[in-house]
């Protein structure tokens, strides 16, 4: 009896509580990110400052971004979405949007304008690849190489990966078709702007795989971004692709004998996604945080902790020095003019259509 009474009393209380705060903002915020140095940069650049302004808010982190799409879909099916804001790569944000799992964002209304008054949608420009996506950073998947193991001639083109005569040794590549097949076709003589046309033709994928075949027995395939820096540090591979921030920390923070090979770096985006169907009070809190966390200054601040380029054009001039190492961050940004002479821009729409098909071919090829 007592228990039942207590239960009824608490549920009445929570009911009353819900009514009272529905107009306000929830004080709990569950953020989903990648963990590691990247999440640390988010904490320092905008979560800590936001908490200083809103001392009542409590932030909980969930380091599940790698499985964000699958987990959000499962939460949605179970009718219990416990996340408030999810950090996801652009292609995942498109899938979340397609599946109706993410809230559409009205970029100009929901986000802060640039200090000079430029609207948010103009400030982010082409980087708004999906209606549900608020970009934070531009990162790239690119190569690093062991400068002590490449011999006399330094590689200056991504095609060094396919040149086993000049640069023998193992290469680390990501275990997925994306980026690898584009690089293969590019080094097989396809013009950069025709890569996706060729890949879409009959025999296009086969041509890319044939090129990859020439180095297949020299490739170590990685699945986690941390593997390549380790493989390079151990001397297991001579070249390795990974996210540029990982290479930056191996070079600048751990002083490994590694050098960047920026040629044909593959640009990609990472940003925030708001799960669909949040209760009003939670959504209000999320949108308040989102507006703050993606303004011009906050995105520029983030670049002081990690070498990823801010997604807003107006943030670029504000990028300063590394917060702890004191080195100038601009030359380490994938977007720096010295690094972005020849870049590969990854076609989200094309991959959304063809990923499953090409993946099957890629997996079959790997298993051969």
């Amino acid at each position: 009896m007592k228990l039942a009474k207590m239960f009824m009393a608490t549920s009445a209380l929570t009911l009353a509580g819900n009514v009272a705060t529905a107009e306000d903002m929830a004080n709990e915020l569950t953020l989903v990110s990648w963990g590691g140095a990247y999440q640390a940069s988010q904490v320092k650049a905008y979560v800590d400052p936001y908490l200083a302004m809103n001392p009542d808010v409590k932030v909980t982190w969930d380091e599940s971004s790698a499985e964000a799409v699958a987990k959000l879909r499962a939460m949605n099916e179970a009718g219990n979405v416990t996340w408030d804001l999810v950090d996801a790569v652009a292609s995942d944000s498109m899938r979340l949007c397609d599946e109706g799992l993410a809230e559409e964002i009205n970029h100009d209304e929901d986000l802060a304008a640039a200090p000079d008054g430029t609207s948010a949608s103009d400030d982010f420009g082409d980087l708004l690849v999906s209606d549900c996506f608020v970009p934070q950073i531009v990162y790239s998947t690119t190569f690093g190489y062991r400068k002590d193991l490449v011999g006399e001639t330094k590689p200056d083109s991504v095609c060094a990966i396919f040149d086993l005569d000049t640069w023998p040794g193992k290469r680390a590549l990501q275990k997925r078709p994306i980026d690898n097949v584009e690089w293969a076709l590019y080094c097989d003589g396809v013009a950069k702007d025709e890569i996706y046309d060729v890949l879409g033709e009959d025999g296009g994928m086969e041509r890319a795989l044939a090129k990859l075949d020439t180095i297949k027995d020299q490739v170590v395939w990685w699945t986690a971004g941390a593997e390549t820096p380790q493989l390079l540090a151990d001397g297991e591979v001579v070249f390795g692709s990974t996210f540029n921030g990982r290479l930056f920390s191996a070079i600048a923070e751990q002083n490994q004998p590694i050098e960047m090979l920026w040629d044909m770096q593959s640009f990609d985006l990472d940003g925030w996604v708001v799960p669909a169907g949040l209760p009003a009070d939670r959504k209000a809190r999320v949108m308040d945080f989102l507006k703050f966390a993606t303004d011009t200054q906050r995105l520029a601040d983030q670049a002081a902790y990690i070498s990823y380029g801010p997604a807003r054009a107006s943030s670029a001039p504000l990028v300063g020095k590394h917060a702890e190492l004191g080195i100038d961050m601009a030359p380490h940004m994938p977007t720096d003019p010295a690094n972005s002479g020849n870049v590969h821009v990854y076609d989200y729409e094309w991959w959304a259509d063809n990923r499953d098909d090409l993946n099957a071919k890629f997996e079959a090829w790997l298993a051969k």
Partner: protein
Amino acid sequence: MSDTTDTGGPVLAADGTPLKRSLARALRRQKMRALLLIAPLLLFILISFILPVADMLYRSVKNGIVAETLPRTVVAIADWDADSGDLPSEAVYAAMAADLKEAAAAKTHTKVGTRLNYENPGISSLFRKTGRKAKKFDIEGVSSWKEELIDINKDWGDIENWRTIQTYSPRVTSGYFLNAVDMRVGTDGAEMRPEAERIYMNLLGRTLWMSLAITVCCILLAYPVAWILANLPMRQANILMILVLLPFWTSLLVRTSAWKILLQQQGVINDILVWIGLVDDSARLVIINNQFGTIVAMTHILLPFMILPMYSVMQTIPPSYLRAAKSLGATDWTAFWRVYFPQTVPGIGAGSILVFILAIGYYITPALVGGTKGTFISNQIAFHISSSLNWGLASALGAILLAVVLVLYWAYDKIVGIDNVKLG
């Protein structure tokens, strides 16, 4: 005492009811009480195990999304003959336009596009792009939706796209299962996929033989260890037991990473081999990122599951049996093979089933040390669950794996007998 003499009437209990009924009632009450006692466990298993498995199995054939999102189109397209070479009629296009308008308002058009894209690459962007305009469709105001839709996106004039919609309009599909066995629905029934797209049967075979190899390695390594454990005095046995259990309690990821450090080309084992001159520095052994790496790492990780049941069975075997055999003139080998070994078979059986079934479902270790040729089918299931989001295909693969395990279990029961399995 009348009941013994009264042959016609039923036997009565003390309270006058027939004894049979009274007995049955008492038994029923007992059964109900027993059932109530196990009810929490039963409910728990039902909710947390049987229902999810059933749901997973259902997902592998479920295909309601097409009929739910495009109800008018599905009805209109039913009579269309895809082999006629003609595009569907105006009525089908008008139905599609009306369905798309509704779906775009409900934001479900991209979901159906994603579903159909598993079967026909490219169709998801057709739905996504058309959906952007579909909210503003004026269904009555357009004279020919056929022209209008093809005008919006020329892919609406492609027969293959309509064929896909027609083929996948039923609420139940065999598409996922066909895909899981490297087949697909072709123009005339099911056919094998082209050689370059076959993945899963090959992987399933590899998973089975490698799991078997791991099980055999575990038996060979565990048997002597378990024997020593069972025959040492308690004190020493306990210390050795801790050595078996310590790795068992260590995180799986730590143990797998340790194998990476040991086995890689610049790793500890290769360094030692080069240092003592067995292997040339330019020809270091490749013992990771292949099947060898997976077998070594997984044998190590699963070894305790083999040692523990073997140990507990061996402990129950009285040493006097072996002594008796020897005193009757058996050689060491005969005594072991004819007397000792048969008594340990239940332990080997229990350990083998445990190790084999665990191995068949492993995916973290193969992903980290297996390279391209040492990965399992579970890696593909994990990929389709968490990355490609093709849960139907993942369910079909899981269902096939489940069926294979059940068949093997049945075969084991026929050959060795499941009663002949002991955990101690």
